[in-house]
């Protein structure tokens, strides 16, 4: 199709303008508001006990979520690609469920299940607090981040096929050796990409986590909850901007990592 110079230019302007208004301006405003009073103000705002606790809690949730998602995600992907069992189609659909279900629904469901009055409420009454505790927030985060590792590893498994694994077995490798030496190195880029996506989503999760968190500053606030409570409850707009910038900074690092990895992956 031949497009005239004028059309091409105006299309470009529209596309860039769209991105600018919807993405760049909001982020720019937050950055500008954050650093307007100076760097020291920003540092002070993100190093209060509540902020530090929120950062730690967010990182803790990521640290628990990622290994669990890696183990079960890889296992699920292998089952989906290599398995020949009934209900494989159903499992495919279930894996995508977190993409379709609103996080807030996840939060409500978790309360109904694990809350004091829920099906597994006995655990709560016995003193092991799931809802309004860290376990609840981890459960919520795992739910919303579950598809990433599976969906990134699956196509790679398809692509590599089973011949390399069969070759390893004829050379004397047992199941575990084949997995560690052949399968895992072969899927490592897909897996890494899945992990990066999981980290980004886990850090940014808000809807599901707010439902199951008690929300006490310095105790059970993640970074997203901190932004929310500073803005809504404390009317500390500057604090909210600063915390949001911190969140964005971490996300930016993750995004950068992702781009680098992606480039490395396409080199192969």
């Amino acid at each position, binding site marked *: 199709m031949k497009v005239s110079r004028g059309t091409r230019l105006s299309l470009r302007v529209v596309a860039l303008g769209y991105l600018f208004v919807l993405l760049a301006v909001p982020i720019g405003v937050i950055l500008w508001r954050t650093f307007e009073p100076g760097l020291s103000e920003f540092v002070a705002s993100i190093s209060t006990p509540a902020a530090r606790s929120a950062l730690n809690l967010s990182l803790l949730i990521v640290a628990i979520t990622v290994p669990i998602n890696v183990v079960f995600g890889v296992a699920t992907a292998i089952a989906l690609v290599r398995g020949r069992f009934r209900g494989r189609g159903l499992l495919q659909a279930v894996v995508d469920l977190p993409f379709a279900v609103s996080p807030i629904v996840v939060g409500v469901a978790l309360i109904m299940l694990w809350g004091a009055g829920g099906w597994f409420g006995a655990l709560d009454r016995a003193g092991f607090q799931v809802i309004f505790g860290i376990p609840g927030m981890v459960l919520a985060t795992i739910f919303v981040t579950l598809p990433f590792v599976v969906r990134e590893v699956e196509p790679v498994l398809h692509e*590599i096929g089973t*011949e*390399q694994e*069969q*070759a*390893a*077995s*004829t*050379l*004397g*490798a*047992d199941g575990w*050796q084949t997995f560690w*030496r*052949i399968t895992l*190195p*072969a899927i*490592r880029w897909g897996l890494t990409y899945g992990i990066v996506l999981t980290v980004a989503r886990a850090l940014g999760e808000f809807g599901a986590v707010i439902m199951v968190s008690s929300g006490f500053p310095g105790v059970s606030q993640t970074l997203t909850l901190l932004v929310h409570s500073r803005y809504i409850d404390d009317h500390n707009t500057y604090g909210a901007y600063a915390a949001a910038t911190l969140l964005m900074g971490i996300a930016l690092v993750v995004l950068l990592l992702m781009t680098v990895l992606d480039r490395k992956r396409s080199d*192969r």
Partner: protein
Amino acid sequence: MITVTSARKNYGSFAALDDVSLDIPSGSLTALLGPSGSGKSTLLRSIAGLESLDSGTVTIQGRDVTSEPPQRRGIGFVFQHYAAFKHMTVRDNVAFGLTIRKRPKAETARKVDELLEIVGLEGFQHRYPAQLSGGQRQRMALARALAVDPQVLLLDEPFGALDAKVRTDLRQWLRRLHDEVHVTTVLVTHDQEEALDVADRIAVLNKGRIEQVGDPVTLYERPANDFVMGFLGSVAQLGGQLVRPHDIVLERDRATALALDAKVADSPGVIDAVVERVVPLGFEVRVDLRADSGERFAAQITRRDAAELQLHEGETVHARAVARSSVVEHDPALAI
């Protein structure tokens, strides 16, 4: 020695192996030859343990390995598409089996060096498979399979993915390698020329059954049935019987043809045919003919005979067969 006894394998209602029994003598290079879907790959993979049999047994060097996994069968396997470990260098690929077995580093290094030299990849040891040509990858795969000193070497269409020139080179090379290393080797191929070229024994498979086993000369000259005859070498149908095109003699004079034909036992008789086309093939000449019955066949005669006959299109000649490779009556059901 590999012994397969009464092997059966079904995929749904399709019988890939239908009561197959086969002995493969130690030190031989045996080709499993057949069209696609004949069960040759399934048979090889069953020997390797990559496929499990529905019934029947496999023994390798007297040991029943039917229920053993591939890693405990003492085999080396080479795949059509190389199955190279993409994330490892050539050296690590070849060393894989030894690393798994936790052999001492020095021993592994020595063995790998030796194998890389045998397969001619000394200078490529630090490359990755993606940086090798198809032929080099397959040689690497061979070295990798040989590194663990397998009792048997199994090759599944090893040259199938390579282009014609490399394929011929590599199979000559495989033949020489086998003469040096002497490991019992089984090669799956659908290419009769390849089987005749490298193997000292050929098992012809068709529809999950073994049609005939023997050395290449026996199979070519005394095929057990029309299928084997048709699959190994070209055939022509003369008077309802299958003959090799080079066993057909053309005569100008009918009386001479009849007199000479009378001396040949079980001959299909003298067939009058019209020359449709004369095709020079270098050393030989192919003559496309049409018999009175409407049956078309081709005779392959030497250049000199063709010159003496002075054949022209549209002329009638008298065809007879000198020696027939097959002694079976033509069965239309087996026609190729």
